[in-house]
C-alpha cells in the first residue's frame, strides 16, 4: 500500500511538477529538428531555454489560476477581521499563515498596514503578515516542489513562516509603536462586509490574475531563463564555485546582497536558482537568493516608508535580512538532509 502511494507521489512529482515528458519532448526537438547535441554547449543551452520557458509558463498559468481561486476566499478585509481579536504569538502565527494565502501586491502594503493598525492589531502581527505575504505562497511552494523536490519546498515554507513569526514577535517585544507615522494612528477602523463571490466571479477573477501576472513577469522569466541557460552551459563551473560555491564562506551573504535590490518575481529567479543549484551551489545559498528577491522589494519598502518612520523601517529590513542569511547558512549546513 505504501509502495503504491509513494509511486503515485513520484509520478505526480515527475510528470506534473517536473514535467520530465516536456524535457524529453524538447530534447527530441533540439536533437532531431535542430540537429544539436544536448551534450554540446549550444544544444544544451537551447534545450534549457525552451524547456524551462515553457515549463515556467505552464506552471505559472495553472498555479496562478488555482491559487487565485483559493485566495479569492481570503481578501485582506477578511483577514483583518479574523486577526482582530487575537493577541500574542498565536496572532503572529495566524498572521504569518494568512499572509501566505492572501493575494499580495506592493500596492496594497499601505492600505493593509493602515487597516490592520486601525483595527487594533499589534504591530508585530501586521509585520508577520507583511513578511510572509510576499515570501511564502502556495504558488512558490508548488513551483519549488517542481524544481527542487518536495522536501526542500516544504522546508522553505516552514522556515519562511518561522522567520515571519519570529520577526513579528521581535518587533512586538521591542515596542516600536511610536515609530508608526502619526497620521496612520488617526485613521479609524471601518469594517466592510466581505462580499461573497459567485463561482463565476471567482473563475473570472482567477483568469484575470493569470493574465495580469503573465503581463508583469513574462520578460523577467525570459531574462531569468536566459541567465540560467548561461550559467547552465556557458559560465565555467570553477567561476561559479569560487564566487558562490561552497568554498566561499561568504556565498550566502553575497547571494542575499545581490538578491535584495532585485525586483523580480519568483518565476523569474527560479531558472537562475535552478541552474546555480545544478552547478553545485549550496541549497542554502540558492534559497537565500530567492528569499532576498521576493521578501524585500524596492516598491514595497518605499510604500512602507510612507507609513513607518525610518527607524522602524530599518529594523524591519535588518530583521528580515538577518533571518534570510541565518536560514541560508543553516540550509547549507544541513543540506545533507535534503539533497
Amino acid at each position, binding site marked *: 500500500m505504501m509502495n503504491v502511494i509513494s509511486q503515485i507521489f513520484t509520478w505526480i512529482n515527475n510528470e506534473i511538477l517536473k514535467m520530465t515528458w516536456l524535457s524529453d519532448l524538447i530534447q527530441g526537438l533540439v536533437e532531431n529538428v535542430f540537429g544539436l547535441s544536448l551534450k554540446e554547449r549550444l544544444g544544451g543551452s537551447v534545450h534549457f531555454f525552451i524547456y524551462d520557458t515553457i515549463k515556467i509558463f505552464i506552471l505559472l498559468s495553472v498555479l496562478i489560476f488555482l491559487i487565485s481561486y483559493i485566495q479569492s476566499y481570503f481578501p*485582506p*478585509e477578511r483577514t*483583518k477581521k479574523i486577526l482582530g481579536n487575537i493577541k500574542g504569538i498565536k496572532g503572529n502565527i495566524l498572521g504569518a499563515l494568512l499572509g501566505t494565502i492572501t493575494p499580495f501586491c506592493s500596492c*496594497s502594503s499601505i*492600505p493593509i498596514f*493602515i*487597516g490592520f493598525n486601525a483595527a487594533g492589531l499589534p504591530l508585530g502581527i501586521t509585520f508577520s503578515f507583511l513578511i510572509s505575504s510576499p515570501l511564502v505562497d502556495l504558488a512558490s511552494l508548488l513551483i519549488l516542489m517542481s524544481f527542487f523536490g518536495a522536501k526542500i519546498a516544504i522546508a522553505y515554507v516552514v522556515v519562511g513562516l518561522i522567520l515571519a513569526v519570529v520577526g513579528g514577535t521581535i518587533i512586538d517585544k521591542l515596542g516600536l509603536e511610536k515609530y508608526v507615522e502619526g497620521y496612520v494612528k488617526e485613521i*479609524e477602523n*471601518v469594517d466592510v462586509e466581505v462580499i461573497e463571490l459567485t463561482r463565476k*466571479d471567482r473563475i473570472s477573477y482567477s483568469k484575470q490574475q493569470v493574465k495580469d501576472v503573465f503581463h508583469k513577469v513574462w520578460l523577467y522569466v525570459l531574462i531569468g531563463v536566459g541567465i540560467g541557460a548561461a550559467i547552465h552551459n556557458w559560465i565555467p563551473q570553477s567561476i561559479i564555485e569560487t564566487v558562490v560555491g561552497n568554498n566561499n564562506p561568504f556565498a550566502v551573504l553575497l547571494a542575499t546582497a545581490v538578491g535584495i535590490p532585485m525586483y523580480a518575481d519568483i518565476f523569474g529567479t527560479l531558472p537562475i536558482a535552478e541552474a546555480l543549484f545544478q552547478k553545485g551551489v549550496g541549497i542554502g545559498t540558492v534559497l537565500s537568493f530567492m528569499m532576498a528577491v521576493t521578501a524585500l522589494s524596492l516598491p514595497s519598502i518605499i510604500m512602507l516608508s510612507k507609513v513607518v518612520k525610518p527607524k522602524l523601517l530599518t529594523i524591519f529590513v535588518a530583521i528580515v535580512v538577518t533571518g534570510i542569511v541565518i536560514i541560508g547558512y543553516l540550509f547549507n549546513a544541513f543540506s545533507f538532509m535534503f539533497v
Partner: protein
Amino acid sequence: MIIKVLGSGCSNCKKLEENTRKAVEELGIEATIEKVTDFKKIMAYGVMKTPALVVDEKVQIMGRVPSADEIKKYL
C-alpha cells in the same frame, strides 16, 4: 445612482473606471461616476485592496476588475 470608483491611479483602477462607464452606457441608466483617489477616503469604506466599486454608498466590488457585463449586475 452615485457610483464611486476607488483607486489611486494604477492601471487596474483605470480599467475599472472604463468598464464601469461602458456598463452604465450600455444599460442606459442615469448615474454619476466619481473617481476617489485619496486613500484616507478609500479606507473610510474599509477597503484595503483597490480597485473597488461603490454604488450608492455600498461597496460592491473589492480588489478585482470585472468586465463591463459583470459590473452591470451591480448597477
